[in-house]
């Protein structure tokens, strides 16, 4: 087997292969359902129904998509500059900690204006969490993949300590969770009676801003140049390490907003199960979107739909809910393969 580069792949190839990858994912879903002894078509139908079959289901999906848009953007921004930020989980919790700390403490009772400030400071916290690994990369050449991964574990332990110690809710009946945010400090719903909070709107705004930044600003140009070819970028006078640091600040800040929006918009408090791996899922969201900021919005909703739909399908059809994680991991690998094959043709000889 040999790969032959395709200089200028046709549009059919560039769109057809990713579509094929998604098709193959559906095939994997059918196979797994059959393995679990359920009717594949029924399972797919139930996932679809559970994700978008009713107004309640659709809103649930959008709620679940909100943190994924933020972490997806965080990963997309970083990966575009070839900065391997696998630590969105840690940055998310950093944002959540700061949100609870300020909204129940210093800034309690300041209302929405206070919450805007809280958002800014939460972003700062997430940015600082990623700054560490990036400084280690630029100063010492330490691979950021491993350090950001290890920070996830450290951060979870910090959260655990905070929730059993300094930030523990005295009225929490012994559960490790923080004091809840008061009503005035929570993000309002988008419309009266609509179970969707302003975090979703913030996520959409963030996606548009990130798109503008990447496509239309000098910083975005620098990030892309550094990501594609750091050597040529340095030769052309682009300050590679400072650009990486700026990328890290943006990426960490975006991931922190996921924690902010989950605490202030949805949960109202901090607990150890605030994120069921939103940081890791953000990688899938970003890769499926081919790292395009606006694409992230759609893939985040798609991924959230699979999770929400699988939860409800699992109750009805008895297929383990972990089918969702398997599908998304398969989708990720298939999509990476599809992208690879748009640039190369397989020749058997």
């Amino acid at each position, binding site marked *: 087997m040999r790969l032959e580069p395709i200089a200028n792949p046709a549009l059919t190839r560039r769109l057809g292969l990713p579509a094929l990858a998604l098709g193959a994912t559906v095939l994997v879903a059918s196979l797994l359902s059959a393995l679990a002894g359920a009717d594949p078509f029924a399972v797919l139908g139930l996932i679809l129904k559970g994700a978008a079959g009713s107004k309640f289901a659709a809103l649930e999906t959008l709620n679940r998509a909100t943190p994924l848009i933020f972490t997806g953007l965080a990963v997309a921004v970083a990966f575009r500059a070839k900065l391997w930020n696998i630590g969105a989980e840690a940055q998310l919790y950093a944002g959540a900690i700061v949100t609870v700390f300020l909204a129940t403490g210093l800034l309690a009772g300041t209302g929405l204006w206070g919450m805007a400030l809280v958002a800014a400071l939460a972003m700062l916290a997430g940015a600082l969490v990623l700054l560490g690994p990036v400084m280690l990369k630029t100063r010492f050449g330490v691979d950021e993949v491993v350090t950001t991964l290890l920070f996830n574990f450290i951060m979870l332990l910090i959260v655990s300590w905070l929730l059993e110690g300094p930030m523990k809710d005295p009225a929490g009946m012994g559960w490790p969770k923080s004091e809840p945010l008061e009503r005035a400090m929570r993000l309002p719903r988008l419309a009266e009676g609509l179970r969707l909070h302003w975090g979703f709107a913030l996520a959409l705004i963030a996606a548009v801003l990130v798109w503008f930044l990447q496509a239309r600003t000098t910083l975005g140009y620098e990030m892309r140049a550094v990501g*594609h070819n750091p050597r040529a970028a340095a030769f052309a006078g682009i300050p590679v390490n400072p650009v990486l640091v700026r990328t890290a600040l943006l990426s960490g800040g975006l991931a922190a907003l996921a924690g902010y929006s989950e605490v202030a918009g949805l949960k109202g408090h901090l607990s150890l199960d605030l994120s069921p791996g939103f940081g890791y899922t953000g990688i899938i969201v970003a890769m499926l979107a081919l790292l395009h900021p606006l694409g992230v919005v759609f893939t985040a909703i798609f991924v959230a739909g699979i999770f929400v739909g699988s939860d409800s399908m699992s109750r009805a059809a008895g297929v383990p809910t972990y089918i969702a994680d398997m599908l998304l991991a398969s989708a990720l690998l298939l999509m990476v393969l599809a992208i690879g094959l748009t640039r190369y043709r397989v020749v058997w000889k």
Partner: protein
Amino acid sequence: MSADYGAQETVLRLTGITRRFGATLANDAIDLTLKRGEVLALLGENGAGKTTLMNILFGQYAADSGTVEVFGKPLPPGNPAAALSAGLGMVHQHFTLADNLTVLDNILLGTVPLWRAGFGRAAARARVLTLSRDFGLAVDPEARVGDLSVGERQRVEILKALYRDVRILILDEPTAVLTPQESDALFATLRSAVAGGLSVIFISHKLHEVMAASSRVLVLRHGRVVGQVATAGTTREALAAMMVGAELRKATVTPGTPGPVLLQLRGVHTSKDAAGKDDRIGGLRGIDLALRGGQITGIAGVSGNGQAALSDLLSGLLAPQAGTLDLGGTAQGQWSPRRALTAGIGRIPEDRHKTGTIAEFTLTENVILERYAEAPFARAGVMDWAAARRVTDDLIRRFDVRCEGPDGVIRLLSGGNMQKLILGRVLDTAPRIILANQPVRGLDIGAISYVHGQLVAARDAGAAVLLISEDLDEIMELSDIIHVMSEGRLSPPFARGSMTAAQIGLWMAGQGFDEGATDAA
């Protein structure tokens, strides 16, 4: 035995080899025969199809059609292992050695079946030492390859082939990395090997070497065989005519008019090149250099002797550790690519694919690479892509870049067109100093004369041009003033035509010019 090769048995026969890469026909129905004990020179310009042909012979690629026979037996296509076991050996232009392994490990790699328990290292080591003595290829078997000089590495490559008892040895541009004296030693090694019954294919585009080392010459042009002659019955001029076709060039560059000194290096030391690849050699060791406007200053020398460091220094990637860098009379303190650009240095880097351009970017994005943050391309941090596209359109027209348009991806351009675009990007800012590092490597003749013409025109407009090249002919043709570079030092300058190639060769080997330099200091 040597003269009567015609009667010898045929050891290698290629018939009708054809190979296409996309739209280009790299090899077009090539026939080739090699007899025992002869040195066949494969002559041709860059891109004539020599390397492709050898890669097919070695099974790196499969041919689209045609057959290979070794010692009368057909060779299965696309199978490197079969080629090796048939007795073929090759020394590549870019060495295929693992730097972090020892010489012995590199030689032993692949000689013992993978699943055998051990090597018999002691016996292997003894054999390597014997071979290196017999063929005059001195090298320490336990040395790490990364610590060896380029010439020594080539010896390791040849030892690798000899260790495997090759009967047909192919050398791909073996002298490109050697000084003239080292080349002579290589030819001596080859003569003794051929006398022992080895057959050699010698790939080159240097006519004098072909005349000196080969017994027969096969000339390739545009992927086809255009001539086949006995070396004894031909002349350099006849070969050159065959190699380049009708359009034989004889560039006549009129001398420049020297202007003021625009850039001056005094006693500059640097660590190594900015990429940090070669840390043993490669740094500058106290060089003095003055670049005058209206002059082309040429740096001759075998690559790997500090050219990368000098190029990185002028590009701003590398700052002097000691010594001073003066621009127009002011010494530079802080030094970076951005400062180099601001100071009016235009840079044509050695590697246009990896350093000069960003492959995945469009032509427009590449054109503004060095000034994306300036008006009119950006205002208050927001890009104006329409302005960038207008400038790119203009460059494409003025520099005759053949492409689909400013929005195409640059990696789709041919080498020549890519270089024209880089040249346009550099000249568009009317730089006072131009660094041209190997500006025509890998280009076809049309593109070469275009690039050279533009450099001369820039010089005539008053720019100081620094031309770094390992092609001595190019240096001699274009430069008004020439330095020779060796082991991180520069020879005193001399005017074009004032030295013979033999004298320059000695300097390239690092002999002679040092004393003069010390006296001057």
